[in-house]
């Protein structure tokens, strides 16, 4: 029993954090929101080169995984830096294709995994029971539609719709296209993809939460009213203390879910994943509300970068199905 990141995992987080800090990710997110994908694609390539997408793929497909713990480590950093694009979706698609290959359907993996794993292209997908929209389909090379007992390569997507988070655009995938798997294999692989999507989203969301907390702590230390930093007032302190309590108890659920996905039986892992999804949804949304309130009117402006994380917190809470649906899984036992 050693429920602690090892030195290598911490170094991985630090190196991603360093790379993303230097990359001006808020500017990339704003450009992405304006439909200019170049900076986001460049980020994706660097994230791929750092090995993030390889974590969900086995060695046979140029991966190093499956490594859910390291995937969680990476997505905390991607969330912390508000990196735009279908990153969770690409990981989930990699997991789906790798699972299909393991179940005797290797062709789609052979076709798409090398590019996705290396960061050369993105994938997006829709999964049964987890919402009708694919994220950033207009910026994705591979469009996977799972449902009705099959997995399809969709031939295209409908007009993307705006999300509350300007750096996210949502589109329905078009009907038809090549069916790459059906029956039990399709359902199994879609279930596995949802596991990875939930894990990566929970981790990304946690990173968003820590970014909101860190920025708000810095702000209330510097903002002076009544002759004192507003961060010295108990009402402000206690609200931020509650944010930290929420994040610090959501965090072990995220890493516990990652360990369960790697080592545990499937139903136990799915309870843990659902718990992580719910707990991060609540804690991070709570962090966003506190961050907005404690920044005052400044936080309510589109110009101020805080809005990048504020709105992402809201969007990620509902991604892959509402929190009620995930709670239902907890009570049902997986």
């Amino acid at each position, binding site marked *: *029993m*050693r*429920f*602690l*990141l*090892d030195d290598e*995992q911490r170094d991985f987080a630090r190196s991603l954090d360093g790379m993303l800090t230097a990359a001006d990710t808020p500017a990339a997110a704003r450009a992405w929101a304006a439909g200019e994908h170049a900076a986001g694609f460049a980020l994706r390539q660097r994230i791929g080169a750092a090995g993030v997408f390889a974590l969900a793929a086995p060695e046979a497909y140029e991966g190093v995984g499956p490594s859910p*713990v390291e995937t969680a480590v990476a997505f905390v950093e991607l969330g912390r830096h508000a990196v735009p694009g279908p990153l969770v979706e690409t990981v989930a698609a990699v997991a789906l294709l790798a699972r299909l290959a393991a179940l005797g359907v290797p062709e789609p993996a052979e076709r798409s995994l090398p590019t996705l794993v290396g960061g050369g292209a993105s994938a997006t997908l829709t999964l049964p029971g987890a919402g009708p929209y694919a994220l950033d389909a207009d910026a994705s090379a591979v469009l996977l539609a799972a449902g009705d007992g099959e997995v399809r390569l969709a031939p295209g997507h409908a007009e993307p719709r705006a999300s509350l988070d300007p750096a996210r655009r949502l589109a329905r995938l078009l009907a038809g296209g090549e069916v790459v798997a059906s029956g039990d294999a399709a359902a199994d692989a879609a279930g596995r993809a949802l596991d990875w999507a939930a894990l990566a989203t929970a981790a990304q969301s946690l990173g968003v939460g820590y970014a909101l*907390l860190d920025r708000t*702590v810095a702000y*209330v*230390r510097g903002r002076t009213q009544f002759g*004192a*930093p507003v*961060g*010295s*007032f*108990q009402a*402000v*302190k*206690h609200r*931020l*203390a*509650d944010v*930290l*309590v929420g994040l*610090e*108890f*959501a965090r*072990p*659920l995220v*890493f*516990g879910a*990652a*360990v*369960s996905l790697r*080592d545990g039986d499937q139903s136990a892992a799915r*309870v*843990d994943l659902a*718990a992580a999804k*719910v*707990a991060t949804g609540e804690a991070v949304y709570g962090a966003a509300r506190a961050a907005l309130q404690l920044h005052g009117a400044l936080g309510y402006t589109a110009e101020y970068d805080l809005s990048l994380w504020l709105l992402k917190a809201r969007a990620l809470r509902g991604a892959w199905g509402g*929190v*009620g649906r995930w*709670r*239902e899984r*907890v*009570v049902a*036992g997986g």
Partner: protein
Amino acid sequence: MDLEFSAAQEEFRQKARAWLAAHVPSDPLPSLETEEGFAAHRAWEGELAADRWSVVSWPEEYGGRGAGIVEWLVFEEEYYAAGAPGRVSQNGISLLAPTLFDFGTPEQRARVLPPMARGEVIWAQAWSEPEAGSDLASLRSTARRAPGGWVLNGQKTWSSRAAFADRAFGLFRSDPAADRPHRGLTYLMFPLDTAGVTVRPIGRIDGKPAFAELFLDDVFVPDEDVIGEPGQGWRIAMATTGEERGLTLRSPGRFLATADRLLRDWRAHGDPADTALRDRVADAVIGARAYQLFTWSNASRFEAGEAIGAESSLNKVFWSEYDIGVHETALDLLGADGELRGAEGFAGEWSTPDGTEHAEPADRTGTTDTAAPPGGTPPPCRTPPPDRAPPTDWTPPPDRTPPTDWTEGYVFALAGPIYAGTNEIQRDIIAERLLGLPKGRR
């Protein structure tokens, strides 16, 4: 990063489970906040101690098993999963004993710890005073030098378990001239049944004498009952309250067992259409798992040689609020039965949602059968062990925790955010020491 236990840890778990299965009383003990219940819980401490299960983390010479923190957490999981009684010795074991290990003399450890482990001497804490609660350093009770010891005077209050306990420990002002309030305090142990000590029990919100006021009138305490150096009491006590808030006061095992009971009750009796309540049940399960994993994480840090400092305040805020929430959810699930109060443990009847009543078996068991039943789907449930088979004319009632277990637990939980440093104090600590926010007026 893993959650696998070693073979030795698994073996330890099995040993604990087997012992508990054979020894946990089948009839629940009366509330430990009553005189009768206190005595019954004291006897249970003796039974635990006879086979070295009362203080597993202590060295063997004091009655323990020298278990590490992981084994201790494993034991706690098994203990509460088995439905074993609450620990009447908790104040001594989790507050005084760690202080003696860190600051006591070998003579004090040899004299104080073994009787504590056996439940022969049960300890109460004596921190708060009528004018010193959250601002504990403003306390006024005095310790005056006398030949061979100290003479105590003053008043302590909210002293948990003091109504029936044997001895108490706390802080006294030994140097009224010290330049700061938290200097000049001395940490002392004293008997509650000696001349000059008056114990006035206080009824907690349900009337049970769960705590007491202590009036001290020229109480002599020998030098051997001073812990650490005179005047160093604040530093020593803060180390103790760190333990109280931190890893040792509320083990995850307790909340895992509570969440498991709630989930079982929900599955057996919840209205599936009541999704609002279902969501709260889910949150109870999630919270217990979060607390377990958070604790494993801290235990791993501890084993890696890291100190757990102000983070223990995160712990205290979380478990104290969790405990209330899980009980509130259970009471809401119970509906009309949620106000049934069980002064002496539940021995009556409960109603079903349609208002009919089920007889309670006279020998309700407190054991939990954690083996998966054939087919594997139903959750673990309380079932009478074979040697305590119910009378043949008795139909097992719905698998459901007696309402009074929940109401007793609810009353106990309500105090959580208040004792061991109020949650307001904890939030100040979190904000200032973990987030680095500036100090301000309290």
